[in-house]
């Protein structure tokens, strides 16, 4: 009986190609949308956390922050003396890099490129996990005297020098020219999506004198010695800075110290929320697909009811008719689910490549949307049929 019923179900699907196609289409779109969205969201989350872990787990970042409350004014920047104090007093700090950044246009011969110029010291390379691909880092004299030398990132090399070796050449930044002494190894995109290799690094003093014209330092990057407690270093640093910035006992910090774990948590929680949001939007399309199926089933219910009447009249048992419709519904919605999964996989791999995020296969969401679509198909395909099959054959035959 099962075999015969399967035969009947497949025949029915085959001879109602348009209806079958529309039924499948709703499920395909819904399933493909949900899986693609969630897969890409997962990939983006993974990409962010990968990039953050590439920054190193022992990094602390300090920025001036805003105090809230009456008489609010912008918190002051840091000074070179802060850097010295941290170096001297925070023993677990391995590298302490002051950072001053501003955008500027770099020019080499006829080419120019708008980039970010960062003023810092050699600790900057250590704290940021930078390695040199060619050349050298700053000498002590260059740092102290604020010489016009720079280490450039891979993107800047590409834009200004093409395939040439940049070390030893002079590039112009604003009004001064500056010797390229080193080339950084490429790091790729940052967690925030910016190109980390689009950078020119100079001694702090050079940037302060020639570009910003002030003694201020925008932020600090610290790396903590291997084995030392990050939390302890963070507490010490906070205490020291509160003291140096004359913050009273009952006042809030006017700066923020963040470690990479915190940054990672902040950023991945954002992408996770986005993933959920995308998933919810896609789930709506799955639902709409389900409603589409319902419509098609309801539109064809008159024809199907008569068909059920014919089958009953020539001696089909109610359960045979029901089994046939159940098989039809299951075959159609599983087929739709499978096609949806295939399309979603192709789309996810393609879009992940386009968006530069890793493709992560998530069996959970594949199974979930597959079974959800199957459930919708069965619900809307089977229950109208059940009502029709319980009619008297003559009433089903005369259904208008």
């Amino acid at each position, binding site marked *: 009986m099962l075999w015969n019923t399967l035969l009947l179900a497949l025949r029915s699907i085959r001879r109602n190609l348009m209806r079958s196609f529309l039924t499948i289409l709703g499920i395909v779109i819904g399933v493909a949308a949900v899986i693609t969205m969630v897969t890409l969201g997962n990939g983006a989350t993974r990409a962010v956390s990968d990039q953050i872990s590439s920054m190193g787990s022992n990094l602390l970042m300090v920025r001036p922050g805003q105090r809230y409350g009456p008489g609010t004014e912008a918190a002051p920047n840091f000074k070179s003396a802060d850097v010295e104090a941290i170096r001297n007093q925070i023993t677990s700090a391995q590298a302490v890099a002051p950072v001053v950044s501003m955008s500027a246009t770099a020019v080499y011969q006829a080419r120019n490129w708008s980039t970010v110029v960062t003023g810092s010291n050699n600790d900057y390379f250590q704290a940021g996990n930078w390695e040199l691909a060619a050349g050298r880092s700053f000498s002590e004299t260059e740092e102290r005297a604020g010489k016009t030398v720079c280490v450039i990132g891979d993107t800047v090399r590409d834009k200004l020098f093409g395939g040439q070796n940049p070390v030893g050449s002079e590039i112009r930044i604003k009004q001064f020219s500056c010797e390229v002494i080193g080339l950084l190894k490429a790091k790729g995109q940052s967690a925030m999506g910016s190109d980390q290799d689009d950078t020119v690094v100079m001694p702090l003093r050079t940037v302060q004198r020639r570009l910003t014209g002030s003694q201020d330092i925008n932020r600090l990057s610290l790396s903590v010695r291997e084995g030392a407690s990050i939390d302890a270093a963070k507490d010490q640093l906070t205490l020291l800075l509160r003291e140096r910035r004359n913050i009273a006992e009952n006042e809030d910090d006017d700066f923020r110290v963040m470690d990479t774990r915190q940054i990672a948590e902040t950023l991945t929680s954002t992408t996770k929320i986005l993933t959920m949001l995308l998933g919810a939007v896609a789930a709506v399309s799955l639902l709409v697909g389900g409603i589409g199926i319902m419509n098609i089933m309801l539109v064809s219910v008159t*024809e199907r009811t008569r068909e059920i*009447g*014919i089958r009953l009249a*020539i001696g089909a048992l109610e359960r045979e008719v029901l089994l046939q419709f159940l098989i039809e519904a299951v075959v159609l919605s599983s087929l739709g689910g499978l096609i949806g999964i295939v399309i979603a996989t192709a789309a996810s791999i393609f879009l992940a490549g386009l968006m530069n995020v890793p493709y992560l296969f998530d069996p959970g969401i594949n199974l979930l949307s597959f079974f959800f679509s199957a459930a919708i198909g069965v619900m809307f395909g089977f229950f109208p049929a059940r009502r029709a099959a319980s009619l008297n054959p003559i009433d089903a035959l005369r259904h208008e």
Partner: protein
Amino acid sequence: MSDPALIRLSAITKTFGRGQAAFQALKGIDLAIEAGEFVAIMGPSGSGKSTAMNILGCLDTPTSGSYEFEGVRVEQLSRNQRALLRRHYLGFVFQGFNLLARTTALENVELPLIYRGEPAAARHAAARAALEQVGLAGWEHHTPGELSGGQQQRVAIARAIVTRPHVLLADEPTGNLDTHTGEEIMDLIGALNRDQGITVLMVTHEPDMAAHAKRVVRFVDGRVDSDRRNGEPA
């Protein structure tokens, strides 16, 4: 009353609706039909002839009374048992053909055999033979949409007889056909009765068509008004 009748209706009533809106379509039908008969059931609209036909065909159940089919009390059967009775003993031809749309003639004729669980080869052979018998050899792979009304009714007849039923029930089989085609269909049904001994019950309101039957039962107002044999011998 000496030999047991194939079909025996006793005091059959059928009421549609309830209470004030109740309508009694059959008001006590007694009717006996023996194997091999060709009975035409006639009567004006609303006389209950189609209702009686549906009860005879086990497509509908009587409100009261008893219906014996080959000695079996049909009104005591379950829904599934009635379906099995239809499957094994009855064949139907309807006014509106009631073929499955977009399905080839061969597949339509095969359908009852699938429910009977016949193997594919036997099914194909029997369906082809039935189509040939109704004069549709060569039309096996046409769908109802590609066939004329007469041809569709022939497919329906092939579907009804492919299981070699004991009784063929035809409800206004020529109602949707022109006179000439109707005559052809009647000849076909008459031949099935004459040559294969299939008992035929046919509802019609056309005297020309009823003339093909050996016995004419006339319904009026939910009762049997007259029951007589046609003068011409078969």
